[in-house]
């Protein structure tokens, strides 16, 4: 029995990946890029040991240098190794992006679920507040609040999380509003399932596919926001190697040593796009109706 179950689960995992990659080479590349950046972020200290420079280490004899065998991607204006800073930057960006999306998802999904399911006054109040929130541009909202967290990564992720939360509330609310009309919800009530379980067992899983897409795309948005804030000097505080910080410090030397500003910019772009594309493919793979077809 146990063996049969095991076999079955590996079978469905294989199907999952087949659908996931069925969109062709682009998904594969983007997935690869994400894996690469995650590995880089995880093993950042190890990588820095290999290249021989830390992200804060200044090599005052080599300032604004072109790539060389010593500094593989060159150095910035005060002689810090660009590669080492990029590597640590991946850590900062991914961590802020994922953390803020997680906060936003947990709180936003619960609020949207309850409001959408119970409807009525609760729903009206929640949705009015959410609409008001959405009317404020996230960059302004986060700029104001981030001045309170003073460059702290955890605090910044909370602020960004609050700013992307309305997207979850709205999405879950809309989905639940239509899902709860389904006969299977009526059927669950008839077998005496309580509201709480209906929400968690029937409504939430059926929102999951869309949630995953929103989540991955929001990680991208959050990274974008974090980089912008850091670039503007109100995000991650200066010596910390965030990609946004690197762009803002490096663009002054765009003419002499363009790599210092361009490389972190490229990293931001790659990660944000990869999150978006992987989100799309995940949606396909999570749909049991598509599984086994493609």
């Amino acid at each position: 029995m146990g063996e049969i179950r095991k076999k079955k689960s590996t079978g469905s995992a294989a199907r999952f990946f087949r659908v996931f990659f069925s969109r062709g080479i682009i998904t594969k590349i983007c997935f690869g890029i994400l894996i690469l950046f995650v590995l880089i972020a995880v093993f950042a200290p190890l990588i820095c040991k290999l290249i021989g420079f830390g992200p804060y280490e200044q090599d005052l004899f080599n300032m604004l240098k072109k790539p060389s065998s010593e500094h593989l991607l060159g150095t910035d204006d005060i002689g810090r190794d660009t590669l080492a800073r990029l590597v640590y930057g991946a850590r900062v960006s991914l961590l802020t992006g994922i953390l803020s999306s997680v906060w936003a998802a947990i709180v936003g999904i619960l609020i949207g679920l309850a409001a959408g399911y119970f409807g009525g006054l609760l729903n009206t109040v929640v949705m009015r507040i959410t609409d008001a929130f959405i009317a404020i541009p996230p960059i302004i909202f986060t700029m104001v609040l981030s001045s309170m967290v003073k460059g702290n990564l955890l605090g910044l992720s909370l602020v960004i999380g609050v700013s992307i939360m309305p997207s979850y509330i709205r999405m879950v609310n809309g989905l639940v509003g239509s899902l709860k009309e389904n006969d299977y919800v009526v059927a669950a009530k008839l077998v005496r399932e309580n509201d709480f379980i209906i929400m968690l067992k029937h409504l939430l899983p059926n929102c999951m596919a869309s949630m995953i897409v929103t989540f991955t795309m929001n990680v991208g948005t959050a990274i974008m926001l974090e980089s912008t804030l850091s670039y503007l000097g109100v995000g991650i505080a200066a010596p910390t190697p965030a990609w946004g910080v690197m762009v803002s410090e490096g663009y002054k030397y765009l003419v002499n040593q363009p790599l210092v500003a361009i490389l972190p910019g490229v990293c931001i772009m790659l990660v944000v796009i990869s999150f978006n594309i992987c989100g799309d493919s995940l949606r396909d793979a999570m749909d049991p109706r598509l599984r086994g077809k493609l």
Partner: protein
Amino acid sequence: MAEKDILLKVENLKMYFPAEKTLGGKVTNWVKAVDDVSFEVERGKTFGLVGESGCGKTTTGKCILRINNPTEGHIYYNGLDLATASRSEIWNIRREIQLIFQDPYGSLDPRQSCGDILREAIVLGEGRQSRKQVRERVDELLRIVELLPEMADRYPHELSGGQRQRLGIARALACDPKLIVCDEPVSALDVSIQAQVINLFQKIQKELGLTYVFIAHDLAVVRHIADTIAVMYLGHIVEIMDAEEIFRNPVHPYTQALLSAVPITDYDVERSRQRILLEGEVPSPLHAPAGCPFNPRCIYAKDICRKEMPPLKDMGDGHCVACHVCGRK
């Protein structure tokens, strides 16, 4: 005649939905989906409810299940008035009354395997059950509805329409119901499968002593299964009679029209019988005609039909008809 054992008694049931509202929230027009409907269902028997689309069959069924809260009237189930019962009273008998859905696919959560769907319904029942008991019950239910035990691992989208409906039946049975409201359970299925599923309904009824309220939009489906048939039109019951009687002696013009749409296999009868074709559309319940709801389409309509609503009159033997003209013999 012996005292009838009535399980469900519906009295003057009305279900109005607000259709138009003023800005202040005052309702100015109602959809009278069910308007003054009364009937009785005997324990262990099948009550057929027939009518065209939109005449309020599903709404009647949902009132019995208290998915809809009736506007007015009473629904006595084993002595308890479901129409006015409190939440906790409903909660107590919730599992005794089940519904089979018109759309077998929409009523199954696409993310649950068939086994999970049944297990969920089983474990919420009375008393704690061990895993083994639950598994045995799943197998038993699948056997009752004539599905293979392997189906437990499948997902609803992997089943055929007939299999899905069987699973829906199994889920309802998992609650040990006494009364099942079957809302056009076969109208989404192929004709060849319809007969199988109807036979299954009959078999289960015989085995478990269930009572059915069986909703259908054509008489051909209920003629095999129902003991009593009520014909609905625009929220009203226009004729109630024994199932035998409806084919022998249909009285209401609407029933006659419905009946003439049912194919008869006997060639001579088929040739000689008079076909009554219905003209026009069912009026929307929003703009129901005054008087008899059927009057715009009725070939016998007289002046009184456009003014007064005909009451449901007993013509003897429990055969009731609501018609100014045809009821009088």
